[in-house]
């Protein structure tokens, strides 16, 4: 709350500066009866930005920096005995102290924890005072400096535009920063994981059985209880994606052909958005549908046929996922088929072929790269899909090709490992990052390839 009020305060000060600057510009104009270089409100905006930007920068440096600074300083308050003890882990100690600061006390903490929390609290208090003084001071000083610059010769519009341009440029860098952040967060943890587990064990191992290190130690020094062979996860992902494709490719493709070649424009305007609703339904709803409607249905119809269907089966998850990705295939393929030049169709009709022959022998082959691209995009969607498999496919890492059994996927393992409390040092937690890395590589690779195909294909007809 304190931070919020400080932010409001800074904004308030800079708004005051806007009024001051605006009035000053008007006064210069009136008293000296001369023309200003820019419209008077540009002077106000200039002073506002002069006051706001430096103080905002100050504010963010302080609010982000203080926690990191405190964390490094508090190390001095941890007693030597604790640091030297065998299971010393600074992250856990830090969490203990922070909990104590927030008043979340479990059991009776050691005296030094309470002491460190007291020190921390006093730091927070001091830093709040320091932050507010320095932010407000910066806002006033830099606003005043901006105000001093106002005179009839000053080109405030150019100055303001320069600032706004750079703000726009900086915000476009956020996209790069996000990518960097994703890669940074995944790659570094993955490297730590591969330091513990060799990468060929991970990529080619056939048993996935992650255990927490603590459990390993408790098992009387038994090493190698955990196994991180990701093949069953890849196989499960693959199996579910194949089932999903068996549902979505025929339905999506035939819908696309019908919509683009046979349907009247009214039908098209009605059915295309209707199919797209399927892509807009939240995945958690599909997951619920798969787990509570489709899976029991498959189970009961399986028992009628004498088949033993697991209550969480790859089939249920795959079927529902197939429904979800229908629009990815139908809409994209429809666009691609529409993009085939009319002259090709006319040529076909001119030779006396029926619509079927034109579609099958001329239009579809011409549109094939785009159709393939749409299917690849749909697969990449299916591979990255999480909630349906978490809720309906189960967690058992079976290496099986039987769609009636429970399988698990890369995404559902990431979720099960990372949801809840985790110790960042253990191989189990780190394995989720390695899985995420493979997931990113697979989906981005497919995406690149699909876009490449579309691009190449588009050039052919332009």
């Amino acid at each position: 709350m304190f931070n919020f009020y400080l932010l409001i305060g800074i904004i308030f000060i800079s708004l005051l500066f806007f009024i001051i600057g605006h009035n000053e510009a008007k006064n210069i104009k009136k008293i000296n009866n001369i023309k200003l270089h820019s419209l008077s409100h540009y002077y106000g905006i200039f002073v506002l930005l002069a006051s706001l930007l430096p103080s905002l920068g100050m504010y963010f440096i302080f609010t982000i920096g203080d926690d990191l600074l405190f964390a490094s300083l508090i190390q001095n308050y941890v007693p030597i005995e604790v640091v030297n003890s065998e299971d010393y882990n600074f992250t856990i100690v830090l969490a203990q102290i922070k909990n104590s600061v927030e008043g979340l006390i479990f059991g009776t903490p050691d005296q030094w924890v309470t002491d460190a929390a007291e020190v921390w609290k006093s730091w927070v208090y001091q830093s709040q005072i320091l932050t507010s003084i320095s932010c407000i001071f910066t806002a006033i000083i830099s606003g005043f400096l901006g105000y001093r610059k106002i005179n009839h010769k000053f080109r405030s519009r150019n100055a303001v535009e320069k600032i706004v341009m750079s703000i726009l440029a900086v915000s476009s860098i956020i996209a790069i920063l996000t990518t960097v952040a994703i890669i940074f967060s995944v790659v570094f943890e993955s490297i730590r994981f591969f330091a513990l587990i060799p990468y060929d064990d991970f990529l080619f191992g056939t048993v996935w059985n992650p255990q927490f290190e603590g459990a390993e130690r408790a098992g009387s020094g038994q090493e190698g209880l955990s196994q991180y062979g990701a093949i069953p996860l890849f196989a499960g992902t693959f199996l579910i994606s194949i089932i999903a494709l068996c549902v979505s490719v025929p339905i999506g493709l035939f819908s696309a052909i019908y919509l683009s070649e046979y349907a009247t424009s009214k039908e098209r305007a009605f059915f295309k958005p209707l199919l797209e609703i399927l892509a807009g339904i939240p995945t958690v709803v599909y997951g619920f549908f798969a787990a509570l409607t489709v899976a029991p249905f498959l189970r009961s119809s399986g028992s009628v046929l004498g088949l033993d269907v697991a209550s969480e089966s790859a089939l249920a998850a795959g079927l529902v996922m197939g429904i979800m990705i229908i629009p990815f295939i139908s809409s994209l393929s429809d666009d691609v088929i529409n993009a085939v030049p009319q002259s090709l169709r006319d040529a076909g009709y001119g030779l006396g072929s029926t619509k079927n022959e034109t579609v099958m022998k001329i239009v579809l082959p011409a549109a094939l790269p785009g159709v393939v691209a749409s299917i690849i995009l749909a697969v990449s969607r299916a591979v990255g899909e999480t909630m349906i498999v978490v809720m309906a496919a189960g967690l058992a890492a079976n290496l099986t090709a039987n769609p009636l059994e429970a399988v698990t996927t890369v995404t559902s393992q990431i979720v099960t490992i990372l949801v809840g409390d985790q110790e960042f040092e253990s191989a189990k937690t780190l394995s989720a990052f390695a899985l995420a890395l493979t997931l990113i590589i697979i989906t981005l690779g497919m995406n690149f390839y699909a876009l490449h195909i579309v691009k190449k294909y588009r050039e052919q007809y332009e």
Partner: protein
Amino acid sequence: MNKKRITPLEATNTVKKSIVKRRSKDNRLKLYGRIAIGLAVCFLLFLFYSIFTKGYPGFFQYYVTLDINFDRDRIDPQGDLSDNSLFDGEASKIVNESLFSIIEPKGRKAKKQAKKIVSSGKDVRIAKMVKNNPSLFGTITKVKFALDDDIDSFLRGYIKRETPESERRISDKVIGFVDKLNQDGRITYEFSDYILKGSASGNPEMAGIKGAFIGSMLTLSICLLISFPLGVATAVYLEEIAKKNRITEFIEVNINNLAAVPSVVFGIMGLAIFISIFGMPRSIPLVGGMVLALMTLPTIIISSRAAIRAVPPSVRDAAYGIGASKLQVIFHHVIPLAMPGMLTGTIIGMAQALGETAPLLMIGMVAFIVDIPNSVMDPGTVLPVQIFMWADFAERMFIQKTSAAIIVLLGFLISMNAFAVYLRKKLERRW
């Protein structure tokens, strides 16, 4: 030249014969297309049907009406209506006494079972009533209490009377009590006041979506506050200002890549960067909103760029012609004209963010939180995550409540998307 020559008559006959086959092939393809669309629409309808039939009863539940003697000395022993005083009071005991006077249980065991008929939220309900309306003290008023979820399931017919007692969740004795209450006309089936106003709870009869709904709104507003300005600024920069060079190309590639990254990866990034490195607390809407903002950013950027591109160059040229600067052209002409398209993209992005679950699981918004979040820094959960959590619970009543929550979520998504379509139709200009 020993190839057999055919006469024109033979040729027409061959074509005539084959044309039937070719036409029927044509019709078959048309039929396959219709079947495919029909199947897809059927899936959609079936999905909605199954959610609605399951979820509609979730908005209702069974209540029992009891005569409550609002005795101030017993409910509010300290007489100051404070939480402590109401907590010390004997509200549950009063409710039980009123219940016992009707069903007259014999013996301690019977009494113990009878107590469980009324939901355990009864004392909270009385405390709330007297707080809102202290004039109730000293009166005897009829009050409706929710029934326990097992009784509710029994009344709905999910727990059958015919099942042997040992396999049933409720005993014969309790069924007898419920019958007695029913004969008195004290049990009613009406719109639940918990589903929309209640918060997360382990007792299905008291569970509601208010906390998750407010969490969703807080998360979504953070997401909007971050992603809309950033997305529009990026789109304007890339379309109007930046020269086409290596850097802008790199930015474009990045944006397209981000759109393809699976959502769960954004959650991992949030966990590793915001929580682990910046040390922000878990489970708060602020972090959730930031993660979702990064996720929806590509959607907003791509649609905003399309909207900016649709503004004809003549508008810009006219503005330049009367002496506007580049930024004046952008801010006074291009952005206002492109705004409907930008807003459409933003609303669609927000709808995506509202339905997103996986990244929020990663940053710990799955915690069981009873309190309704007051600010973006309070731990909270969101609607889809609440649905995910409820779907895991075993109690029968949670299935209905989950479906009811899904109906609310879908209602919001559909109205957001409908609004986007409306905006596009009404405001977007054709040039």
